[in-house]
């Protein structure tokens, strides 16, 4: 088990390094975009004096390196700063009290995004693994073909298109589910679930194909192995061959692809959130990029990168644990 612990620590250290590099890339990229926060927020009213006043107020007149180091210093201490929009609006009153910090701003949105990801995962993971198993069991049958065609069609369509198709059939023609997913604090769990179902179904359609096909491929791959042939020769039923003998050995690639898709559910839901007016982190991210609100953009990116790193780490650990050869190295 010590080796597992060592791997975790190693990977966490590498993860921190990745986050650091990501933060530099994002900071540079946002700075390379034309216009800055002052110009974006003032719009038509961007007179040179007004732009200069906001820039001085927010420290945007400092050179980029100085600004980055200041941000990094705060971030290391766990302080993600105050968003430009909040700081700027707060300065109307002449004080900075009352301005929400980036962490306070992101927390409820992130919780919403996690809720959506959770609901989607609860639907998508069992469906795709089951479909994958059945497709492997009845491979090249009509069922296998149909499952493949349907999931590949849904993954090949743009998300907003899938969303509108679902809205058309489930909200407009047959008003079963609400097309507006404006969840808020204090909603009962069932109401929240009801409102989240349509975006969750859309995302399910997007991620199912990947997981299902990987499950199917990993199992079919193993079915050619001598030990499976042995099992079959001793008369084990096909279902039992797959579930008892093939699946445990195919877990590693399946866990990997599930982790990758879960990360996507956290980071890639921007379009779905906009279509369904779901108050998640993706909308906040897009709004912040639009007004070049660097502190919020940075924090969102760090969360996205962190989600990828942690879920991949989790996948690796689980695949090690699922494989006795890796669990007990010589």
């Amino acid at each position, binding site marked *: 088990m010590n080796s597992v612990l060592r791997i975790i620590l190693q990977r966490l250290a590498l993860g921190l390094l990745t986050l650091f590099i990501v933060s530099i890339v994002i900071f540079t990229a946002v700075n390379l975009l*034309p216009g800055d926060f002052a*110009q974006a927020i003032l719009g038509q009213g961007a007179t040179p004096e007004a*732009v200069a006043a906001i820039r001085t107020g927010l420290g945007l007149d400092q050179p980029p390196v100085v600004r980055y180091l200041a941000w990094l210093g705060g971030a290391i201490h766990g302080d993600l700063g105050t968003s430009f929009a909040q700081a700027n*609006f707060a300065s109307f009153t002449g004080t900075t009290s009352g301005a929400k910090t980036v962490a306070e701003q992101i927390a409820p949105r992130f919780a919403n995004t996690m809720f959506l990801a959770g609901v989607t995962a609860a639907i998508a993971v069992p469906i795709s693994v089951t479909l994958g198993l059945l497709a492997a069991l009845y491979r090249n049958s009509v069922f296998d073909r149909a499952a493949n065609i349907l999931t590949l069609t849904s993954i090949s369509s743009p998300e907003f298109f899938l969303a509108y198709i679902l809205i058309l059939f489930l909200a407009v023609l047959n008003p079963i589910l609400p*097309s*507006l997913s404006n969840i*808020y604090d204090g909603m009962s769990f069932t109401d929240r679930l009801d409102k989240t179902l349509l975006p969750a179904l859309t995302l399910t359609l997007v991620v199912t194909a990947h997981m299902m096909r990987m499950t199917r491929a990993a199992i079919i791959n193993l079915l050619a192995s001598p030990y499976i042939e042995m099992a079959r020769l001793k008369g084990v039923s096909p279902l039992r061959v797959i579930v008892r003998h093939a699946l445990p050995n195919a877990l590693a690639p399946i866990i990997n692809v599930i982790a990758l898709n879960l990360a996507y559910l956290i980071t890639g839901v921007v379009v779905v959130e906009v*279509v369904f007016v779901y108050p998640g982190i993706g909308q906040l991210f897009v709004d912040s990029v639009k007004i070049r609100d660097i502190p919020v953009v940075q924090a969102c990116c760090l969360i996205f990168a962190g989600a990828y790193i942690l879920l991949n780490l989790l996948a690796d650990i689980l695949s090690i644990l699922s494989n006795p050869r890796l669990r007990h190295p010589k």
Partner: protein
Amino acid sequence: MAQISRRGLLKTGVAAGVLGLTGLPLRAQTRGGKLTAGMNGANTSDSWDGRTHSDLFMIACAMGAVFDCLTEVSADGTLKGELAESWEATPDAKTWTFNLRQGVTFHNGKPFGADDVLESLQMHVAEGAKSAAQPIIAAVTEMKKLSDSQVQLTLKAGNADFPYLLSDYHILMYPAGQIDEAIAKGIGTGLYQVASFDPGVRFVGKRVENHYKGDSAGYFDEIEYIAINDTTARMNALMTGQVDAINRIDFKTEALLKANPMLEIQDIPGNTHYYFPMLTKVAPFDDVNVRQALKWGIDRKEMVAKILQGHGTVAYDTPIGPANQYFDADLDPLEFDPDKAKYHLKQAGMDSLNIDLSASDAAFTGGVDAALLYQSSAAKAGININVVQEPADGYWSNVWLKKPFCESYFSGRATEDWMFSTAYEAGVPWNDSQWDDARFQELLVKARAELDSDTRRAQYYEMQQILRDRGGVIIPMFANTVQAINKKIATPAKVGGLWQMDNARMAERWWMA
């Protein structure tokens, strides 16, 4: 205008007679129900600080529901008192006395009085405060409390529109001494008190019982405003009945809304205008003949038909629109006429003219298309417009006010003076045509302090004529405010067009059908 409640009518039993006299729509307002509206323009940084408001969502929440101003612009454009009951001015329009409504309380129980007015006004000129209404209040040299229900404001120079300016959505009335708390929680004197507010996401308001407006406004028991910035999502929400009203519909899918018998599209003429400013101190635009040639070389009807999809009216180069009090509807038209354009070009000593037009969709929706339309109509008059497509990012900083011929928009203002002194007075920062005309400037200053309505009308008509004849902006169109409601909501026959959603006051003025 006196509003008549259904209960009141039933009591007196003279319903038909009174309705006939007042000309009210024959749909009586009923109390009760819930209004759910989807609107754009919300942001996670929104707060109850009126000084920061700039887009519909917060204007509808604050001025339209939770807070009150001293004065209010009615749907027909006239001014009426809100927290001020009446007002009078000295003949030079310099000193204004406001009589405040009595018996008004804030949502936390504090009575409203003169101190609240003074402190709420001072917020806009406080040290370090960056209020959009700063110029309005900065023009006040002295604020005096005459009694608990009377304040006197003295201006630097006479301004007959001053009570109009106080209807500005930034100038909300807060409780004195508790302004920070009121901004944090949303404590005003409005018809609806905050039940829940999630910035950039949602606002819920509950009707205040025993409100000073009584039964004359605020018919819903509850209102819910949902932030829906995406146009398609907004249309979907209305179609599936999850909201009862939306602002800004998408013209492309307008037919779908029309096909639904439960929905009604409101198409309201307003003052929003899309236009082409020229720097009148830069050649060749310093020559009035060149400007006139350009004025005759644009096909305004085509612009309204193709850029606004018919949701607008033709304008003749003046920013005073159909929602203004002194709008001159009989201004001499400037219809597309290549011969007249050629004639003015000849007067300028030219056979043809080559100019650059800086265009971008950042200036207004369809900005580049409008420039291309202009290019093709002007070509018939020997004017070669080279359309330079500018990047949307930084358009207002790098192109507008800098390039000699570009595109822009204004949402218009409630009063003529407000509009002119924002963008047409010599030397103001947003004077995007470098407009400096002796007669215009003289009229502007005179009309500002003029209390006689007929004299003012004549002055403003002349100013519109001047802009039409020789002004430095080409304003081909006024865009309508286009929004949609479910028919279970009823509205008065006249819906305000100064701001979207009945001047952002739908919570006060609409009711369940």
